[in-house]
C-alpha cells in the first residue's frame, strides 16, 4: 500500500470498498477512484487506443487522457469515465477498457509490432485495396481492434433534470482566483453563482501546501465557503462543470448523484444548468503539460502536479523512487512533497539556474541534476530512466515513478467557444485569451497569473470590475496574504536523442514522429495536422497534448509557435451524457402529445391511434372478427356512404379573424373572394405562399360582417397563424383586423352520410337542420347544454354531411350523445384512414398533393384564382413556369387489371417509354382501396393531365412489385356531379 499513515483530505473514519477488474480494494471517503488505485499500488489501468500500450494514471484531474474506465455495470455502465473524476463510493465497481482477454495480457498489444504501419494517416494509405474488401474484411477488423469503452446497449435508466439560473456574475472555477472573485462580488450584493467541477471547491489549494492569511489554504477555503454560504445572493454549486459558452448563456452539468451508490427516490442523476449572466469570470486554472521524451506514456509516468495532488490531498504516494523531470519551478515543489512523504527523489531540470527551493531540497536528500534531460524511460511499469547530463554524459537511474513538469497551459478552452482566437504570449510561453466573448474575462492561472498571490489579487480585481460594471460602484477589493512563489517555466518542447516512442497525444496514441511525418507530407496547417494525426481529437480534446503538438509542428515547419497558431476548443469542454441534454424529453415524453376531447371515448371503443403532427388521432375502430385494418376501413367507408359515420375533426386549425378589415385581409390571403361571402355561409379557400405555391386550404365561415372563422389543415395550423399574423402586422399594419387561435376552444365532429340529417335532427330536436334552414355550405350557431355550439354543412367525404362544434370541455359529452342518438341509425365511428379513402374517392387534394411544389392550377383550382384583387402569391403564380398548362396536373388513376393495388410514389410513363428521367411524366400522390368501387384508385400529378383522361399510362414502381398498367381518369371517382352533398 502506498497510503501515508496521516494527512490528506480523506476521511479515515469512513473506509470504502470497491472493485477494479473484479478485484477488491479499499479506500476512504474523499478519495477518487484514481487516488484509491494509487494508494493500492494499481499501476496498470488501461490499454491505449491504437497500439494497446499499457497505460497508468497520468494526472489527477479532469484532463486525464489514460485512466478511462467503465464505471458501474448493467444499464448504468458508463464507458470512458475518467477515474480521476470519480468520487469513490462504497460498492463502486469499475473495469478497465480496450483489452482482451485481460488488462495484463492484452492480445491486441501486437498492434505495437505493426506500429510502423499505424503511423499518422494510415487510414488513408492502407485498407484501400481491393475496394470490395473494405466492407466485409477491413472495416469489421478495424472496428473490433479500435475503440475504447463499450456501451451497455441498454436504455439509460437514470433521471435527468434541468434548471435555469439568472445572476449578475458567474464565476467558473472555485480555486484561489474564483473564490476571491466570488467573495468580492458577493459581499457587494451582486447575484453570484460559482460553479466548480470538483467534489469540493478549492482547486489547486487542496493539492499544494500553501498558506493564506496565516492559515492553511485548505482552512482558508473552508472559511470562504462558509461566508459565501451565509450570503443569500450567492449560490455555490459543486460537482458542476460549465461545458459550453453560447450567445448570452453558459451551460453546465451538475453531477447530482453520480457520487452515490444509487440516487435517492426522485433524485436525478445529473442536472443541466442554463445560466444567463451578463458577466462571467473564467477562473478555470491551468493544465500542466507533459514532457515529450521516450516512453513518457508508460505506467508510472505522471504529471508533477498530479503527484503532488496524490501525496498532499489523498495521502497516497505513487512511487518510492522518483525522478522528477521538470522545466518548471512547480516541479521543485513536487520534489519537496515526495521527499517529505519519504520517497527518494532525483530532480532533473534542463535549466541551468536553480530556484530558491534547491537548498531545502538538498537538506531533504534530493539529488539535483541541473542542465540535464531525461531521454527515455523503460519498464511496464517504469523501472529505469535514461538521463543525459549537462556535460553530455549519460546515466541510467532506477525509479518506479517519473513526475514530469512541462509547464502550464491556462485552461482557456471555454473562452474560445464563441470564436475568440487565443494569442501566443512570448513572455508566458503559452496561449492566452486576448479577445473574449462578451462579458467573459479570465482570472488567475487562466489569465497567466501563475503564483498564488497573483491569482488572489487578479480574482479580487476581476470581482471589483464586475461590481463596477453591474452597479457603477467602486468597492475596494479584499486583500489576502499569500506567497508570490516562483512560477516560471522554460519550455522544453521536445527532448532530443530519445530512442523510443515519444507520445504527444496519449489518448489517440499520437507520437512526436507522427507530427513530424504530417509536416513532411504537407499537412502544415494546425487544422490539417490535427485531422491527419488525430492529435487533440480524443475525448480529452487535447488538453494535455495540444500545445506540445503545436510546438513540434512549428519546429518541423520552421515557424514560431505564435505563427503556427492553435486550435479553438469546442463545446462540450468535458464529455456530457446525452441523457442530461434530453432531460425529460425521451421515449413517450420526447415531445408533447396532444389529445382531442374524444380521445378517451375512442380508446374505450378500441380505436387504433396514429400520430398527426403532435396529435393522436383515431385511425380506425376495429370490430371483433375483422381480420385486417383494410377490412375495418372498408366497413367504415361503406357504412358511412350508406348510412351515417362520425369522425373527430377537432385537430384542424381554427382561427377567429375579426375586425372591420377582416374580409379585406382574407381577400388578400386567399386566392378566391371572401368579402363577398354572406353571413351564415362557408366557403372553401386556398392560400398560396408568396412564390405562388399552394400553402394550405380550408373552409372559412362568416358569422358576422366583421367576424370570420378560418380553418386550416391539422399540420399547417401554426404555419397559417404565423402567416396571418405576418400579413396583418408586417405587410398591412394599417388594416384593422385581429386574429386569435381557437383550435383548442372547439371540439368538432364530422357527421356524414345519407342518414346524417335525420340523425342530427334526432340528436338536436330544437335545431332545424332541414335543407332550407341549413343549405349546403351554410352555418349556424345554436345552444347545447347551456353553451354556444355551431353546426356547419360541409363535406369532405362527398356525402350529405355536417360538422358540429361545441366547446372542448363538452366534447366528450357530445361524442357520446351523438352515438347515443346515432344508435338507431347504425352510426359508425370512422378514423383517419376511412377519412382518407373517402377524400381520395372524391378527388380532394390533401397533404400529399399540397406538397410544397404544386400550384392551384396544378390541382385543378386555377379558375378559383380571382382576377379582381391582389393576393399573396398572385404575381409569382403567373410566372411562365408555374402557369404552364402542361405542368403535371391532378388526375385520377385506376388499374386496368382491377385486382391490382396502386401505391403512392410510382412514376408515370407513357406505355412503351423507357424508365428514364427524360420520360418521367409525373407520379402517384395518393392511393387507396375503394370499397365503393371495389377496386384500387389513386390520385396523381401527370403532365398535361387534364387533357389525357381515358389514356393508358404505366405506373413504374420497380422498388415495390413492378409496373402496373393504369387508366387516366377524372379524379372525382364517386358522384362526380356532386349530387349527394346537396341532398
Amino acid at each position, binding site marked *: 500500500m502506498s497510503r501515508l499513515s496521516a494527512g490528506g483530505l480523506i476521511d479515515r473514519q469512513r473506509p470504502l470498498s470497491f472493485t477494479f477488474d473484479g478485484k477488491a480494494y479499499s479506500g476512504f471517503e474523499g478519495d477518487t477512484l484514481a487516488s484509491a488505485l494509487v494508494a493500492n499500488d494499481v499501476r496498470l489501468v488501461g490499454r491505449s487506443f491504437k497500439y494497446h500500450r499499457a497505460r497508468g494514471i497520468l494526472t489527477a484531474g479532469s484532463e486525464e487522457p489514460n485512466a478511462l474506465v467503465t464505471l458501474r455495470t448493467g444499464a448504468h455502465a458508463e464507458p470512458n469515465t475518467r477515474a480521476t473524476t470519480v468520487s469513490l463510493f462504497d460498492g463502486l465497481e469499475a473495469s478497465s477498457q480496450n483489452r482482451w482477454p485481460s488488462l495484463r495480457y492484452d492480445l491486441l498489444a501486437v498492434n505495437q509490432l505493426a506500429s510502423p504501419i499505424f503511423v499518422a494517416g494510415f487510414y488513408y494509405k492502407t485498407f484501400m485495396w481491393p475496394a470490395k474488401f473494405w466492407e466485409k474484411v477491413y472495416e469489421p477488423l478495424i472496428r473490433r481492434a479500435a475503440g475504447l469503452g463499450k456501451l451497455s446497449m441498454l436504455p439509460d435508466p437514470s433521471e435527468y433534470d434541468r434548471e435555469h439560473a439568472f445572476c449578475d456574475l458567474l464565476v467558473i472555477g472555485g480555486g484561489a482566483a474564483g473564490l476571491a472573485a466570488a467573495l468580492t462580488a458577493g459581499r457587494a450584493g451582486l447575484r453570484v453563482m460559482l460553479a466548480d467541477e470538483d467534489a469540493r471547491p478549492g482547486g489547486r489549494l487542496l493539492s499544494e501546501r500553501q498558506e493564506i492569511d496565516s492559515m492553511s489554504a485548505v482552512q482558508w477555503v473552508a472559511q470562504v465557503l462558509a461566508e459565501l454560504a451565509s450570503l443569500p445572493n450567492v449560490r455555490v454549486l459543486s460537482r458542476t462543470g460549465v461545458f459550453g459558452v*453560447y450567445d448570452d448563456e453558459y451551460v453546465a452539468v451538475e453531477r447530482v448523484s453520480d457520487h452515490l451508490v444509487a440516487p435517492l427516490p426522485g433524485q436525478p442523476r445529473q442536472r443541466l444548468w442554463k445560466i*444567463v449572466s451578463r458577466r462571467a469570470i473564467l477562473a478555470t486554472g491551468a493544465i500542466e503539460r507533459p514532457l515529450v521524451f521516450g516512453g513518457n506514456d508508460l505506467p508510472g509516468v505522471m504529471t508533477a502536479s498530479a503527484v503532488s495532488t496524490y501525496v498532499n490531498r489523498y495521502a497516497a504516494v505513487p512511487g518510492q523512487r522518483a525522478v522528477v523531470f521538470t522545466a518548471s519551478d512547480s516541479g521543485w515543489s513536487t520534489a519537496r512533497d515526495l521527499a517529505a512523504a519519504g520517497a527518494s527523489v532525483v530532480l532533473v531540470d534542463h535549466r541551468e539556474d536553480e530556484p530558491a527551493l534547491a537548498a531545502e531540497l538538498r537538506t531533504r536528500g534530493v539529488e539535483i541534476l541541473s542542465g540535464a534531460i531525461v531521454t527515455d524511460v523503460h519498464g511496464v511499469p517504469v523501472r529505469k530512466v535514461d538521463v543525459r547530463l549537462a556535460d553530455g554524459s549519460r546515466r541510467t537511474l532506477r525509479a518506479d515513478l517519473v513526475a514530469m513538469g512541462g509547464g502550464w497551459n491556462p485552461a482557456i478552452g471555454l473562452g474560445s467557444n464563441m470564436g475568440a482566437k487565443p494569442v501566443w504570449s512570448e513572455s508566458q510561453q503559452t496561449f492566452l485569451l486576448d479577445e473574449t466573448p*462578451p462579458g467573459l474575462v479570465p482570472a488567475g492561472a487562466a489569465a497567466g497569473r501563475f503564483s498564488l498571490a497573483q491569482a488572489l489579487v487578479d480574482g479580487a480585481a476581476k470581482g471589483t470590475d464586475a461590481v463596477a460594471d453591474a452597479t457603477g460602484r467602486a468597492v475596494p477589493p479584499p486583500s489576502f496574504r499569500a506567497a508570490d512563489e516562483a512560477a516560471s517555466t522554460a519550455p522544453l518542447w521536445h527532448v532530443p536523442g530519445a530512442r523510443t516512442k515519444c507520445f504527444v497525444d496519449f489518448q489517440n496514441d499520437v507520437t512526436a514522429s507522427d507530427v513530424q511525418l504530417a509536416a513532411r507530407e504537407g499537412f502544415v496547417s494546425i487544422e490539417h495536422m490535427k485531422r491527419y494525426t488525430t492529435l487533440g481529437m480524443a475525448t480529452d480534446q487535447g488538453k494535455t497534448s495540444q500545445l506540445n503538438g503545436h510546438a513540434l509542428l512549428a519546429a518541423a515547419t520552421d515557424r514560431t509557435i505564435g505563427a503556427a497558431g492553435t486550435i479553438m476548443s469546442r463545446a462540450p469542454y468535458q464529455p456530457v451524457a446525452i441523457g442530461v441534454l434530453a432531460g425529460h424529453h425521451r421515449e413517450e415524453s420526447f415531445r408533447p402529445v396532444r389529445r382531442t376531447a374524444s380521445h378517451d371515448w375512442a380508446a374505450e371503443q378500441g380505436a387504433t391511434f396514429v400520430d398527426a403532427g403532435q396529435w393522436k388521432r383515431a385511425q380506425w375502430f376495429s370490430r371483433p372478427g375483422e381480420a385486417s385494418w383494410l377490412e375495418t376501413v372498408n366497413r367504415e367507408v361503406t357504412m358511412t356512404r350508406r348510412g351515417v359515420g362520425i369522425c373527430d375533426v377537432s385537430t384542424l386549425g381554427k382561427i377567429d379573424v375579426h375586425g372591420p378589415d377582416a374580409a379585406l385581409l382574407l381577400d388578400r390571403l386567399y386566392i378566391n373572394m371572401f368579402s363577398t361571402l354572406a353571413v351564415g355561409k362557408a366557403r372553401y379557400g386556398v392560400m398560396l405562399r408568396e412564390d405562388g405555391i399552394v400553402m394550405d386550404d380550408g373552409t372559412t365561415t362568416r358569422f358576422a360582417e366583421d367576424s370570420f372563422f378560418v380553418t386550416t389543415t391539422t399540420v399547417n395550423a*401554426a404555419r397559417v397563424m404565423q402567416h396571418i*399574423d*405576418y400579413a396583418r402586422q408586417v*405587410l398591412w399594419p394599417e388594416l384593422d383586423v385581429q386574429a386569435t387561435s381557437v383550435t383548442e376552444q372547439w371540439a368538432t365532429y364530422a357527421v356524414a352520410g345519407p342518414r346524417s340529417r335525420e340523425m342530427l335532427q334526432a340528436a338536436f330536436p330544437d335545431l332545424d337542420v332541414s335543407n332550407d334552414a341549413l343549405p349546403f355550405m351554410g352555418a349556424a350557431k345554436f345552444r347545447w347544454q347551456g353553451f354556444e355550439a355551431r353546426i356547419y354543412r360541409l363535406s369532405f367525404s362527398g356525402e350529405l354531411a355536417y360538422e358540429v362544434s361545441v366547446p372542448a370541455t363538452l366534447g366528450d359529452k357530445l361524442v357520446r350523445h351523438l352515438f347515443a342518438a346515432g344508435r338507431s341509425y347504425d352510426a359508425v365511428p370512422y378514423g383517419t384512414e376511412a377519412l382518407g379513402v373517402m377524400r381520395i374517392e372524391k378527388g380532394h387534394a390533401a397533404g400529399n398533393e399540397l406538397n410544397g411544389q404544386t400550384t392551384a392550377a396544378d390541382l385543378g383550382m386555377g379558375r378559383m384564382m380571382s382576377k379582381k384583387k391582389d393576393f399573396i402569391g398572385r404575381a409569382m403564380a403567373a410566372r411562365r413556369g408555374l402557369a404552364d398548362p402542361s405542368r403535371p396536373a391532378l388526375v385520377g388513376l385506376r388499374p386496368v387489371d382491377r385486382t391490382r393495388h396502386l401505391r403512392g410514389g410510382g412514376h408515370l410513363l407513357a406505355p412503351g417509354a423507357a424508365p428514364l428521367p427524360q420520360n418521367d411524366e409525373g407520379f402517384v400522390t395518393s392511393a387507396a382501396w375503394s370499397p365503393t368501387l371495389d377496386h384500387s384508385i389513386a390520385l396523381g400529378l401527370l403532365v398535361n393531365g387534364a387533357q389525357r383522361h381515358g389514356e393508358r399510362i404505366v405506373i413504374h414502381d420497380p422498388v415495390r412489385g413492378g409496373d402496373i398498367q393504369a387508366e387516366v381518369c377524372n379524379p372525382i371517382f364517386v358522384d362526380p356531379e356532386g349530387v349527394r352533398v346537396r341532398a
Partner: protein
Amino acid sequence: MRIPCPYCGERDSQEFVYRGDASPRRPEGEDGFYDYVYLRDNVIGEMAEHWYHAQGCRNWITVLRHTRTHRIAAATLSRETPA
C-alpha cells in the same frame, strides 16, 4: 441567444421563429416580386431581421442583429417599424 422582445422582455431565442431579412418591401404593383421573394444580400454586419415570437406574445418583431457576433442592437414591434 436572448432576444429582447419589446413586449415580453428578454427571452430565449427558441421561443421565436426566424424568417429573414426585414428590409425587402412587398411591391405595390406587378414588378419586383422575383427580387422580393428570392434575392437577399449576404450581410456580414448588422441586419434588420424578422422574428415571430411564436411562443410568447405572437407578434412579429424587427431585430437589428450583427450576423457575425450575434449582438442585438435593438428590437421593435414590426407593426410600428416601417421597413
